[in-house]
């Protein structure tokens, strides 16, 4: 042999798509973790060859599943993401849409794709996502020790079907290619097998086609590979191969179920994110066409750098709880702050409990949830009692009543009673009670400049008649604060001259 060596050249050897060493535990870093004779090793090898042949190593992103093939990222030197059980097609969708030039391969077993991930694969196929799916079907849950899978053959014994799969109890083997072939969008669906030399070579060609279609932008491709699991099947590798060839293919006939590679129109996903400056126009939030357009030209005031208002507004449905929060957020936004508005309400339109969380902050908001408010607007007593204990010490409470319940006073917060419903009633409509509270809040805290609230009013109030009433309610709320903070024995009805 020695004298012949220079005349021999390697024609088949370890693919450069594999890492030189696998970053796995212990010293077996040159072997896969698969059992002797496992089909996954063969499929992975064929996939590596297809990637190499097409020259797409630097563009390929492999989405690894949960199951025996979870370690795909240990082997193939491409982009890798390992995902939650069954969610490969959803993640592949996201990767492909955000990186349209990548070649995204979702590698999945039958427990992953045909059981927990059935919804994901059906919808990704139905949307015609431009991804390639490799579906390795060995009719069993291998990694977890041999439980029945949706693809388990009839009469096949598994740990969970010890008497054999009975269709009356366990249903029938799920035929994924046939199922997906009922959909309009898929471009390429083919079932192949690892049951013989010839079948293995055909598997290699099908995998290459599935990737090639994606290179050409043709849409959804899936290759189902009938694959041996000698360990769980209790067969030696050669017997398992025979089982694939002679038994599995009777339930899962091989063949092409869809091939529109020639007629499909190449698509290129374009990431169409509008320019930020365009958003107000797209959302119809351009300069108001109302009578008082001048307010829109107001430059937002400089935010107070330390501002961190964490507000809970609570009451019963119909009191304008959510709208009050929306006004606050809108006005905060107009004043140049970061804001969030998080509504929470029951299924009832009226009379159910309702609250919303509003944050107005000089810095970006981490969470819209207000778990420790420094401002509470309680429009009824249950709301006062519910949220009072969560208040930050030193916080401000505005409570819709003439006086504060005796057992609620004395906490480390300032509770100011503002009879907002009664005041609104006197103005002509209980519906503007929320605006009374808003006026009181702004007067008591000065948290937002007047101009900001004017702009919020222009944006959110569409009827002229309500606009006037709302302004009157705001004014009444501001006045009510002064009454409460003045000597109680001498109530004052003085109006704030700033609100002309």
């Amino acid at each position, binding site marked *: *042999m020695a004298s*012949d060596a220079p*005349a*021999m*050249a*390697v*024609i*088949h*050897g*370890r*693919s450069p798509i*594999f890492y030189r060493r696998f970053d796995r535990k212990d010293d*077996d870093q*040159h*072997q*896969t973790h*698969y*059992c*002797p*004779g*496992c*089909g*996954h*090793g*063969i499929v*992975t*090898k*064929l996939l*590596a060859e297809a990637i190499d042949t097409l020259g797409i190593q630097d563009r390929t992103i492999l989405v690894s599943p949960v199951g025996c093939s979870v370690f795909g990222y240990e*082997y193939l030197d491409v982009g890798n993401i390992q995902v939650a059980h069954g969610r490969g097609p959803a993640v592949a969708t996201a990767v492909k849409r955000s990186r349209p030039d990548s070649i995204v391969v979702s590698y999945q077993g039958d427990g992953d794709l045909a059981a927990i991930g059935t919804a994901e694969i059906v919808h990704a196929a139905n949307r015609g996502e431009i991804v390639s799916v490799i579906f390795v079907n060995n009719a069993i849950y291998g990694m977890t020790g041999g439980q029945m899978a949706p693809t388990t053959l009839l009469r096949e014994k598994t740990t969970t079907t010890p008497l054999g799969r009975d269709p009356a109890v366990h249903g029938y083997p799920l035929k994924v290619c046939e199922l997906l072939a009922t959909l309009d969008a898929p471009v390429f669906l083919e079932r192949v097998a690892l049951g013989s*030399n010839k079948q*293995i*070579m055909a598997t*290699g060609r099908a995998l290459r086609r599935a990737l090639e279609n994606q290179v050409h932008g043709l849409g959804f491709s899936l290759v189902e590979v009938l694959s041996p699991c*000698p360990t769980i099947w209790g067969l*030696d*590798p*050669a017997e398992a*191969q025979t089982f694939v060839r002679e038994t599995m293919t009777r339930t899962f006939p091989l063949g092409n179920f869809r091939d529109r590679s020639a007629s499909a129109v190449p698509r290129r996903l374009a990431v169409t994110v509008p320019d930020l400056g365009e958003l107000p126009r797209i959302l119809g939030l351009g300069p108001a066409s109302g009578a008082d357009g001048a307010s829109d030209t107001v430059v937002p005031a400089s935010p107070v750098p330390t501002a961190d208002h964490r507000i809970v507004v609570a009451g019963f449905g119909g009191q304008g709880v959510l709208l009050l929060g929306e006004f606050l957020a809108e006005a905060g936004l107009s004043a140049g702050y970061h804001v969030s508005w998080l509504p929470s309400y029951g299924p009832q339109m009226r009379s159910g409990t309702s609250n919303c969380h509003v944050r107005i902050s000089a810095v970006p908001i981490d969470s819209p949830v207000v778990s420790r408010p420094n401002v509470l607007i309680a429009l009824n007593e249950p709301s006062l009692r519910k949220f009072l204990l969560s208040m930050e010490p030193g916080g401000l409470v505005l409570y819709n009543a003439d006086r504060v319940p005796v057992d609620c006073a004395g906490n480390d917060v300032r509770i100011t009673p503002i009879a907002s419903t009664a005041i609104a009633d006197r103005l002509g409509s209980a519906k503007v009670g929320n605006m009374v509270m808003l006026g009181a809040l702004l007067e008591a805290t000065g948290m937002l400049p007047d101009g900001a609230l004017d702009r919020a009013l222009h944006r959110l109030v569409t009827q002229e008649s309500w606009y006037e009433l709302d302004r009157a309610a705001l004014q009444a709320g501001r006045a009510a604060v002064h009454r409460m903070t003045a000597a109680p024995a001498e109530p004052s009805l003085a109006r704030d001259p700033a609100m002309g």
Partner: protein
Amino acid sequence: MDVARDRGAVAIDRDECKGCGLCVEACPPRVLRLSAELNRYGYHPAEYLGSGCTACGICYYVCPEPGGITVLRRQVA
């Protein structure tokens, strides 16, 4: 068989091989077998009989390990 006239040859990484025997089953000229020896993992690795390889490459494709089998072909002078 005359080694000097073989079209190809097979090299097996005996410490990557898990002794599954798929290559032995697949080889058309039947020039592979499982060794009587054990490798460091305790498997009987496949081995080449030393002559008769046609360089068809099928053993490479049926082998589940990335680098278990390397197939060489004689270059035409």
